[in-house]
């Protein structure tokens, strides 16, 4: 098992190195296009991976969180609104994380403490997130559909040393800290899930809560914490849309990314590295869509179909490529006093 993983990592690193060598031996213009594609892939993947890993914390603990879409919207709105009022994107991020966590906490308490149906509660979260942000959009900016432009968005990290390189320049020289955080988060999440007491308990809670209970750990507490973490991360993912990648809050701007994040989570088999991979793949499909529209203007009349492509591939990928194994006790409320 470990050996297989080791060879997989070796193969992955080798593939990346070969790919990069391949790219930098291409003509300059194609290098630029490739660099641009790498950059857009990472940018499009960031909200998916953040929300997807968030969903993982919730579902590994045993709580289904289909409300990611609503929570992301909440994060996107709060991030934009706080930044708009305080003119500080970092406060905006803080706000979005708090708002996401709060909304998720409601979901968590309903599912865990009151043993509500996870899907119904999650649907409620989506509807609340959509309705509340649409309403508040008009309250805050007195506009319909789209809020005012936010000038002070999250500043990008600029690496001047590689700016002039035809491939690394467009790919990595201007990079958002949130994108960097996506990679850091994957590593941290892996560590937390597999190396810490909390991670062990979280996994146990999603597999067999009665075992965790008889080991003397509060199942309810672990599950609620997992759901809150999922909200914080999905909120951050939303904020990246409104004050990182974009620079305004728009009505329903997440456009289904919460669901794609769920798909990435399932496709990534509920593991941090898997979700990173799946998120990057879906992000790449998104980027490819832009790429085709820009570089093959002849295909513009078919842009709707091209935009559909990623979703089709998602269906194919989910349906055909691999079989996912969800946590065993997912969506099952844990009742202590149930008679065995």
């Amino acid at each position, binding site marked *: 098992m470990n050996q297989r993983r080791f060879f997989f990592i070796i193969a992955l690193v080798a593939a990346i190195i070969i790919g990069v060598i391949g790219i930098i031996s291409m003509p300059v213009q194609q290098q630029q296009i490739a660099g641009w594609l790498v950059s857009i892939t990472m940018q499009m993947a960031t909200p998916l991976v953040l929300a997807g890993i968030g969903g993982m914390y919730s579902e590994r603990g045993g709580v289904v969180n289909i409300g990611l879409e609503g929570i992301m919207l909440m994060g996107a709105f709060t991030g934009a609104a706080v930044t708009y009022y305080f003119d500080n994107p970092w406060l905006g991020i803080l706000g979005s994380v708090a708002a996401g966590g709060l909304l998720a906490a409601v979901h968590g308490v309903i599912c865990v403490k009151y043993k509500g149906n996870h899907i119904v509660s999650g649907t409620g979260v989506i509807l609340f997130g959509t309705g509340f942000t649409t309403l508040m959009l008009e309250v805050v900016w007195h506009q319909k559909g789209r809020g005012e432009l936010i000038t002070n968005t999250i500043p990008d990290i600029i690496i001047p040393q590689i700016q002039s390189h035809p491939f690394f320049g467009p790919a990595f020289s201007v990079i958002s800290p949130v994108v960097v955080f996506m990679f850091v988060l994957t590593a941290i999440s892996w*560590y*937390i899930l597999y*190396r*810490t*007491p*909390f991670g*062990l*308990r979280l*996994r*146990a809670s999603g*597999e*067999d809560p*009665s*075992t*965790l*209970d*008889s*080991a*003397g*750990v*509060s199942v309810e507490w672990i599950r609620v914490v997992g759901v809150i973490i999922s909200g914080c991360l999905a909120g951050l993912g939303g904020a990246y849309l409104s004050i990182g990648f974009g620079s305004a809050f728009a009505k329903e701007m997440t456009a289904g990314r919460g669901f794609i994040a769920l798909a990435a989570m399932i496709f990534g088999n509920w593991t941090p590295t898997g979700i990173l991979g799946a998120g990057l793949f879906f992000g790449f499909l998104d980027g490819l869509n832009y790429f085709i529209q820009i570089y093959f203007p002849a295909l513009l009349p078919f842009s709707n179909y091209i935009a559909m492509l990623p979703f089709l591939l998602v269906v194919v990928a989910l349906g055909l490529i691999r079989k996912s194994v969800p946590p*065993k006790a997912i969506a099952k409320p844990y009742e*202590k*006093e149930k*008679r*065995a």
Partner: protein
Amino acid sequence: MTTEYAVELEDICKTFPGGVQANKNITLRVRRGEVIGLLGENGAGKSTLMNILYGLLKPDSGRIVINGEEVSLNSPQDAIVRGVGMVHQHFKLIPVLTVVENVVLGLEPILKKMDVRSIPGGRTIGSVLPVDFKTASKKIEEIGEENGLPVDPSSKIHDLSVGLQQRVEIIKMLYRQANILILDEPTSVLTPHEVDELFVTLKEFVKAGKTIILITHKLRESMALCDRICVLRDGELVGIVERKDTSPSKLAQMMVGRPVVFTTQKEPRSPGEVVLSVSNLSVLDNRKLEKVKGINFEVHAGEIFGLAGVQGNGQTELIEALAGLRKPTNGRILVGSVDITGKRARFVREAGVSHIPEDRQRMGIILPFSVEENIALGSHYRPPFAAGLFSAILQLDVIRSATEDLVEDYSIKLSKVNALASTLSGGNQQKVVVARELATKPNLVIAAQPTRGLDVGATEYIHEVLIGLRDRGVAVLLISAELDEIQNLADRIGVIYDGQMVAIKAPGEATPTELGLLMAGHTHESSDEEVALS
């Protein structure tokens, strides 16, 4: 301060939501260093009482005293810190995790230099610091060596045999330094050899001064191991007896509330024509491995054919092929003159085959359905249960009256016929399955582990039903892991080993030892030495 008693439970009462009174004023005092057996039928309240002692359930009233200290247990944590450990009947192990992960769960050691859990707020921080799996693994290996329970800490639970899984459960208790060990039906999943090993281990624990509470419904075990035996019935304490003052039949009487006959009386058989004929049958399992390898046998009308074998030698696949749940790769199955090879389950049922599945909760009954609905299943598509155009409408009144009749005939204990199957005890669930399967007047009954997990009373009842069937000229194929049961009931005994029928004997023809050897794969030529060993 030391007292005579390790555990004192006084006047414990527990009523479950839904009104089942599981414990009624039970007082039990366990002496330090003794083995006490908690004996009773299923649903007598044994596990409930122990779950209360372990802090999983809260009693409605009563006192709990552990090592002389009166305690109020809010969670298992409170019991664990006082040295109480429990091995549950259904193991509390997570299959996808490793042994070490399962053992440390809830009590994870942190890398020493980073352990901040003693300072205020340190427990929260500690929960995201690295777990010291290395030290934990070493400790598990040490515990294993000291107690003769070796296990590889890095293997995953789902790769281990049931016996090894139980070993992990015991190590888990020892890792938590438990000195009051509760074992809930520890032998129900073990092979006879594993049971012997477990008993040796438990005796070692007693020598080391630990107190053991053994929950069981098997008389033999309580007589073999316990110093005192406490009998529960219907949530009430019937009595506590010293082993030397009692006998299995006395205990059985206390458990059931009436005298119990151990060997079932039966008339000599009068076999008729061949009902089931299996020739050269081969079946694959889920992993596409050949589990049944060209098996041949016949079952006659009016006989019980007992199929003995250690679990996993192809019985499951054979039963599934016979019941139409799995397609054989080769061979023929005839019921009467009908070829049912590879046919669907409905075709097989209509050919007059009834199937009492080995895992009743998974295949025999739908737990969230009512008893009526469970009775209707399988016959729900045809008159009298269905009527109208295309038999599309369920005749609920017919189903109800049929269910009421069966409940009466089989004396199934339930509150009302539309009670959920999940609210019934295991024995009554099995009675529902048996009632349904026999209501169709079959020619052949496949009874797979029909008494597994059932108490003395229900077992006795099921045995009577099977013999009654035989006497009425039905062919019965009985598959059981309990050799006693097979020897008691069967007119002919077939032994299955590695997917092949290694012998077919009459009950008087072979001793249990011989059958045991055949089940373990020793053929006739096995040396005297091996016979002497067993």
